[in-house]
C-alpha cells in the first residue's frame, strides 16, 4: 500500500502488488504528472528515506529494491516531484523536520543535523562553495554512523540520496548560483527581455544597488555580478519585460 501524493494527477491510497514498477504507478495508476510537467523524482519513506529517479522508473518496487536504491519503504509514503521541485530545497525541507523532531540527547543528531541544515541554507542563499559540499557529505556519513537512534541514523538519507542522484543541482547552486527548478528565490536570475523593454528607466531608478544600466528609450541591462535578487525591478516594470528564472 502506498500513499501516492505530490505532483501527480490522482492522489490517494493505492494497493498494488509487490514488484510493480514505478512507471506503472505514476503513469497508469497515478494518471501522470500534474499539469503535464516532467517527472523528476519520487521520495519514499519520508524524511528517513531517499529518492528514486528517472533511472528507477522500470525498477520493480519491493522492500529490498528500495533499500538497494538508497531509500526505504517506510510508512508507504510516495511523494512525486516534478521539474519545478528543487532537490536541494527538498533536502532542506526534510532536515528542518528532523531538527524540529530531534530529541536532543546525542551530539551528532542534536548539533550535526543543525549544522547540515545551515550548510543547505547557505547553499540556497547562493553563498555556498564546493568545500561546503565536502563538509555536508562528511557530516552526513558521521551522523548516520554514530547517532543513538533510528531518527539520527536515517536523517542524512535525503541529503545523501539527493547528493547521489542530483549532484548537478547542488553544483549549479554552488558554482553558478542557479536553481534550475526556479524554487530558490535567492538564486532567481533576473534578466531584461530586450524585445519588450521600452527603456522607461523605472527599473534602473528603483534598483537599490544600481545594477541596471541603459539609455532612455533603449533596452536596459541587468548586471548579474551586482544584482542581489531583490525583485524590485520585476515588481516595478509595467511592461513585463523582466524575466525571472
Amino acid at each position, binding site marked *: 500500500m502506498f500513499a501516492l501524493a505530490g505532483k501527480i494527477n490522482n492522489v490517494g491510497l493505492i494497493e498494488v502488488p509487490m514488484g510493480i514498477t514505478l512507471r506503472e504507478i505514476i503513469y497508469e495508476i497515478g494518471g501522470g504528472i500534474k499539469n503535464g510537467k516532467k517527472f523528476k523524482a519520487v521520495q519514499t519513506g519520508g524524511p528517513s528515506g531517499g529518492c528514486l529517479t528517472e533511472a528507477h522508473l522500470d525498477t520493480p518496487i519491493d522492500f529490498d529494491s528500495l533499500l538497494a536504491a538508497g531509500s526505504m519503504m517506510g510508512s508507504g509514503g510516495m511523494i512525486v516531484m516534478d521539474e519545478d521541485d528543487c532537490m536541494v530545497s527538498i533536502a532542506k525541507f526534510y532536515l528542518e523536520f528532523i*531538527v524540529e523532531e530531534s530529541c536532543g540527547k546525542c551530539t551528532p543528531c542534536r548539533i550535526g543535523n543543525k549544522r547540515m541544515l545551515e550548510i543547505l541554507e547557505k547553499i540556497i542563499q547562493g553563498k555556498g562553495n564546493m568545500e561546503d559540499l565536502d563538509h555536508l557529505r562528511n557530516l552526513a556519513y558521521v551522523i548516520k*554512523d554514530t*547517532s543513538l537512534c533510528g531518527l539520527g541514523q536515517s536523517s542524512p538519507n535525503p541529503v545523501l540520496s539527493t547528493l547521489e542522484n542530483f549532484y548537478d543541482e547542488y553544483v549549479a547552486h554552488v558554482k553558478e548560483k542557479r536553481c534550475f527548478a526556479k524554487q530558490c528565490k535567492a538564486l532567481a536570475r533576473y534578466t531584461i527581455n530586450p524585445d519588450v523593454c521600452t527603456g522607461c528607466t523605472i527599473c534602473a531608478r528603483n534598483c537599490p544597488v544600481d545594477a541596471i544600466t541603459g539609455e532612455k528609450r533603449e533596452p536596459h541591462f541587468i548586471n548579474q555580478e551586482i544584482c542581489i535578487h531583490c525583485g524590485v525591478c520585476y515588481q516595478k516594470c509595467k511592461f513585463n519585460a523582466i524575466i525571472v528564472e
Partner: protein
Amino acid sequence: METVKLTIDNRHVEVPKGTTILQAAHQAGINIPSLCYMNLPHLAQEHKPGSCRVCVVEIPGRKNLVPACATECTDGITVLSHSLRAINARRTVVELLLSDHPKDCLICPSSGNCELQKLSITMGIREINSVENAAMSTYRKDASPALNRNMDKCVMCRSCETVCNEIQTVGALSAVNRGFMSVVAPAFEQELTDSPCTFCGQCVAVCPTGALTAVDNTFHVIRALADSNKFVVVQTAPAVRAALGEEFGYPPGTSVTGKMVAALRSLGFDKVFDTDFAADLTIMEEGTELLDRITRFLNGDKNVRLPILTSCCPAWVNFFETNYPDMLDVPSTARSPQQMFGAIAKTYMAEKLGVKREDMVVVSVMPCLAKKYECQRDEFKVDGNPDVDYAITTRELAHLIKIGNIDFKTLKEEDFDRPMGESSGAGVIFGVTGGVIEAATRTAYELFTGKKLEKVDFHELRGMEGIRTASVNFDGTYIHIGIAHTLGNARKLLDGIRKGMYNFHAIEIMACPGGCIGGGGQPLHRGNSIVLKARMDAIYKEDFNKTIRKSHENPEIIQLYEEFLGKPLSEKSHKLLHTHYFSHPKQ
C-alpha cells in the same frame, strides 16, 4: 564466573560477562576518550547515557559505530578504537560540540580542568567548519551565592542531573526542552536561588566543562589583603589540609597543614587561625545540648524531641528547611564551626586585638560551596556586617598561592596563631563522615558518665557506607547513633524518623560523599574514589597524632569560656553561637 574473550586494538582481553567495552579497554590499559561517561564507584553510580558519542568504536561487521561505554563485550568480537572510521567520527563529533560552545577558553574558570578542552587538545582540532553566524544554543546566565550556571557551555552530559536527583535527591535540575535548545535547568528555567537547590556543589564537582562553576571570591580576598585599613583573619577547615596538596602535585592523602599555614601567612593574612578550634567550640555547645536533651528524655520528659541532628552542614540545613519544615525543632541549634568562628573572632578576638568590628575581615577556606551561601545568611550578620565575610574553596586557595608566586613545596612548616588556633583531634575529624558525631561522643561520654574515656577511637562510627548505625555504651546506657552522608541517604533517615521508625538519640548528616573531604570545592577527583579514601585516612591520622583528642580538653576553649562565654548554652553563647531555622518549602 562466566567470561568473554575479545580483541581490542590487537590486544586480547578476557573479562567477566557484562563488562562494557570501555571498562574492558581500561583494564587492558587502553584509554578510549569519553565525555558524558561518569563513574562514581564509592556511590555505586555508573552514569553512561551514551549521548556524547565521543567514545564510539568500530566493530567490523556491525553496521554502525558503537559507544564503548554502553556496549557490552561479546565473545569473539574485534574492537577497533582508532580505525580511521572511528577517528574521523570522533573528531567530527568533538568538532560539532566545539561548534556549539563559547570560544572563551582563555578566561573560562574551567580552563585547564575542562574535559572538552582536553579532547580538543588530544585530537589536535585546529578549525571548526561551521557556517558564518552558525546557530548557538545560548541561555540566560544564572548566578547564586555559591555557584554559577553558564549553560552555553553545557554539553548535555547530564551528570549534574544524575547527582542532583539520584544521589542527592534534591531534584533541582532536569533536562528540559527538546532538540538543539535542550539544556539542564531548574523548573521553568528559574534561577537556582528560587529552586530547591541546596548549594551542595556536587554538580560543580562532576561538570566536565565550565557550565557549572563555583563562585570565585579570590579577588575579594586579595583586595582585603591589600587594604591597609583592614585586619584580615583567616580560618581553615579540616578537610582543606587533607586535599590542598593535590593541587601542588602531592599524592592524595598527604596532610599539608604546616605548609598551608606558612602559605597563608606569606600571602599576608594578619592572623592565621584554625576552624578546628571552632569545631571544638561546636562540640562544647552541641554536646551540652545533646546531653541536655538525652537526659531530659531518659527522665521521661515528653516534650523533648529526639534525635538531635547535627547542623554544621549548610547544604544539609537548606535541604532540611525545604523538605522537613515540620521538624525544625529537631536539629541542634548550634551554628556551624565556620560561623561560630566568625562570631567569636569579631567579638572576643577583635576586643583582644583592639580591632574594630568593621575593620576586621574574616575569610574562611572551605572544601565547600554551601559555605559561601551560609556566610551571607542574614541571621549571621550584626547590623549588616557578616560574621564571616568571604568563604573561599580549597581550589581558590591553591590559586591564590599560585598568584602569590609562592613555591608551596619548599615552604617551611608553620603553626597556627593563638588563641584561636589550637584544636583537639576531635576538631580535626569534623572533615569526614562520622567525625562530628565521634567528636561529640568523646565529650558527651565524659560529661554524661563523669568518667574518663579511655578508648578515644570509635571505629564503629567510621567508614564509607552511606548509612551507618551504632550503639555506644555510655557506662550502661546505650546511646543510639545514626550517620548518613549524601542527601539521598539523609532523606532516607529523615523519612524514617518522620514515620517514627527509629529510636536514634543523635544523627549526623553530611551532604557530600565521604563528608566534607568530598566537598564541591575540593580538588576535582572525577570519580576516583581512592582519592576520597586517602583524604579520609589523612584526617584520622592527624587526629591520632594529636596529644589532645577531646574538645573539652582544649585549653584555648577552656580559656574562651572562662574569659568570655561563661559556660555552654549561657546567654552569651546562645546569642553568638546558636541559631534557629526557617521554613521555606520550595518545590
